[in-house]
């Protein structure tokens, strides 16, 4: 059997890599931070835990990273999931109400014991994840079997999801005081605990897509679903799988987010994060029309999004202006991907012609 030849290292191979532009974008932002924000790269060792602005980008970026994992697969099939933010809120509400059901009695009840919880932690987490997965399953059924366009199908849950989340908590914000739960978003084992969650989900997803045929089928369906159908690929099952999985990822992101703010705030948790997640995937180089995807590139895309936010805060952009400034930076990043810039880079790295 012939082995595929391993090409030698050249700059061209580097720039043709999927990771080149996402990494370039991230580097540019970090270089900006290095110049304008003193101490941005300082990492302290506090009782064995590493802390600093750089670590914060990773920690605060973990929700977007989790969402981007599921979103990458959905976008690769040529779809999109607008409901992940709402799904986060639903998962958070389920978790909140299971730990502190006082809201159901229409009373705000302050729990003083930080180790009090109505239901055990494992049940809280599993219930929240099951509900989030069902949300994803619902999207999957609408898209794959009812043949509703993904944007419309997921818009339904995007709009109604926050209502559902409020119904679960009886319209109240539920305080989460249970300390072990806070560890999900705020815990530290040398690195932030949420990062380990990202790593686990990422690894599972990578194995699921690249060590089985699922990844190839996702790409095939995204590029040409008719050819895929002719080749015997069950396009509906693939779509059902990715939307369901996207809901599951949103569930974990919801747990992390609610643990971070110690409330299950149905109207604010995960607000507009679906757009950050979609942008993260786009910056990672997966086309909105579907096809080839790279999970690692999406992760870098998520970090780009978070680094932008964090840098804006660090240089003192007021919170109300953040979205507008962020939009400008995102446009600049997307411009990096334009054919002109790509062509320019290609020219620089093109092999010199022999005369």
């Amino acid at each position, binding site marked *: *059997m*012939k*082995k*595929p*030849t391993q090409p030698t290292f050249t700059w061209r191979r580097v720039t043709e890599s999927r990771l080149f532009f996402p990494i370039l974008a991230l580097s540019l932002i970090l270089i900006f931070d290095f110049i304008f924000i003193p101490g941005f790269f300082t990492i302290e060792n506090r009782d064995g835990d590493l802390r600093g602005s750089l670590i914060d980008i990773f920690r605060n970026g973990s929700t977007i990273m989790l969402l981007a994992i599921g979103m990458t697969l959905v976008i690769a099939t040529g779809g999109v999931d607008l409901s992940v933010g709402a799904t986060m809120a639903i998962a958070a509400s389920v978790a909140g109400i299971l730990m502190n059901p006082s809201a159901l009695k229409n009373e705000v009840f302050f729990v003083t014991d930080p180790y009090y919880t109505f239901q055990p932690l494992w049940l809280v987490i599993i219930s929240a994840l099951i509900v989030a997965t069902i949300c994803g399953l619902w999207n999957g059924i609408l898209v794959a079997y009812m043949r509703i366009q993904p944007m419309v199908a997921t818009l339904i849950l995007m709009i109604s999801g926050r209502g559902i989340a409020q119904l679960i908590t009886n319209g109240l914000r539920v305080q989460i005081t249970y300390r072990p739960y806070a560890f999900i978003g705020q815990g530290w084992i040398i690195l932030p605990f949420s990062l380990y969650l990202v790593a686990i989900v990422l690894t599972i997803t990578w194995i699921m897509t690249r*060590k*089985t*045929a*699922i990844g*190839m*089928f996702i*790409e*095939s369906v995204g*590029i*040409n679903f*008719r*050819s*895929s*159908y*002719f*080749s*015997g*690929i*069950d396009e509906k099952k693939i779509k059902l799988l990715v939307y369901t999985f996207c809901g599951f990822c949103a569930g974990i992101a919801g747990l992390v987010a609610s643990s971070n703010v110690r409330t299950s705030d149905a109207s604010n948790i995960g607000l507009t994060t679906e757009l950050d997640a979609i942008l993260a995937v786009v910056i990672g180089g997966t086309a909105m029309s579907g*096809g*080839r995807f790279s999970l690692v590139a999406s992760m870098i895309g998520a970090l780009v999004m978070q680094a932008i936010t964090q840098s804006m805060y660090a240089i003192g952009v007021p919170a109300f202006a953040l979205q507008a400034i962020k939009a400008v930076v995102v446009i600049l990043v997307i411009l990096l991907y334009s054919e002109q810039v790509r062509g320019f880079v290609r020219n620089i790295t093109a092999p010199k012609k022999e005369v």
Partner: protein
Amino acid sequence: MSESDHTLLVMEGISKAFPGVQALDDVSLTLKRGEILCLVGENGAGKSTLMKILTGVDQPDAGKIIFDGSEIQAKSPQHAQSLGISTVYQEINLCANLTVAENILLGREPHKMGRIDWAKTNELASETLQRLLGVDIDVAQPLGSYTVAIQQMVAIARALYIESAKMLILDEPTSSLDENETAQLFKVMRKLKATGVGIVFITHFIGQIYEISDRITVLRNGKLVGTYETDSITRVSLISKMIGRSLAEFDEMTKIKLESSKHIKRDALLQARGFGLTGSIQPFDLDLHAGEVVGLAGLLGSGRTETASVLFGVEKPDSGSMSMNGSVVHDHSPLGSIKRGVALCPEDRKAAGIVDDLTVRENIVLAMQANKGWFQYLSLPEQYEIAEKYIDMLSIATPSADQAVINLSGGNQQKVILARWLATNPQVLILDEPTRGIDVGTKAEIQKLVLSLAEEGKACVFISSELEEVLRTSHRIIVLRDREKVAEFTGEVDENTIIHAIAGSEA
């Protein structure tokens, strides 16, 4: 007029490389006003690439282009069009969900008070189609509701509509047309020629080259072989220039076929009774035997492709039954078919065949993997082994198994699709127009391959719009007319008998 006034286009020393492929190497071409120049060559010879460079789809690495007396470098097809170069591409590049009229006049619709004047648009489109091509259809219907042939006509009408067109490129426009439609197209081409338009005509049909062209430019493997006056070159020498080898193997076919017909098994492998789908194909009976090639003949729209679709389960039948190896079939779906050993190479390579951004390797293992399911993943070494095996076996021209299939030429893409299905090791292989848009040499290769597959004990269904090819390859021929099976011939039949059956007249 001086010589230079006659010359419309000069392309000189054009070179172009794609990742891993030198598509064109120092190719030159000239076209005079009022001339029809045939551009011929095998798949991957560089015909389409050369035209794409002329029309600005791709930019050349080297060379210059002089059009109408001045040096040009088209930046985009729109730019080329504004210079007077119109193109009809090999694959139809129109919007199936827009109406015929919209497709013809897209971006050039007549306006009335700032809005599109639909009545006038439809009238203009309808008039253009009738005047230029003699096609009379309802232009307010979506393009997708018409056959491929009509769509091709619409594409030509769109290219011709530009009144200032000085030059027209037709990239295999006849590969999906039947004889009448081709004759119609030729009439239009002669008319345009008389008005001084230069035409570059790319085709694989040798007969058509001699019927229509003034000169012939031959490319092979991205290099110019030569340009010849059509009258001064014989068919045999033209073909040998195109493929660079002798034609003896064509005559071999008959011998191979006779030999292989001895191996046909008596028991039916696949049996269909009263099998049909309302509005698609009338109920028909069909027996396929191991070791046999069954040809489907008929005009465009006679139900050839529909028969293939319903046999493979792309469309579910609504009458009749099918059994394979003696057991009744219940699961009518592509996956079900793959599982019981039926394969279909679909007619529409671009829409239903290749998955263009995936690599050659992934395209080849796709159906096999679908059969194995999600979790029995073929390891990468296994995938490479399978891919390399078929790349060798079918001599697929690709720099590596990791090349995206979209970078391959049409014929090689077809071979990749064929490889995909051979990899599933089917018992029944349905080939719908497997040689469409493929050069003479590869055609013979594929025909031979079909016979050798039959000899291995597979049953093949061979569909082609070229009757000669069906005759040469098939042991048994089924004739379809108006979506109905009308006749069946076994053994040696002559072309006339079949033509009469297709036409519906008594022989």
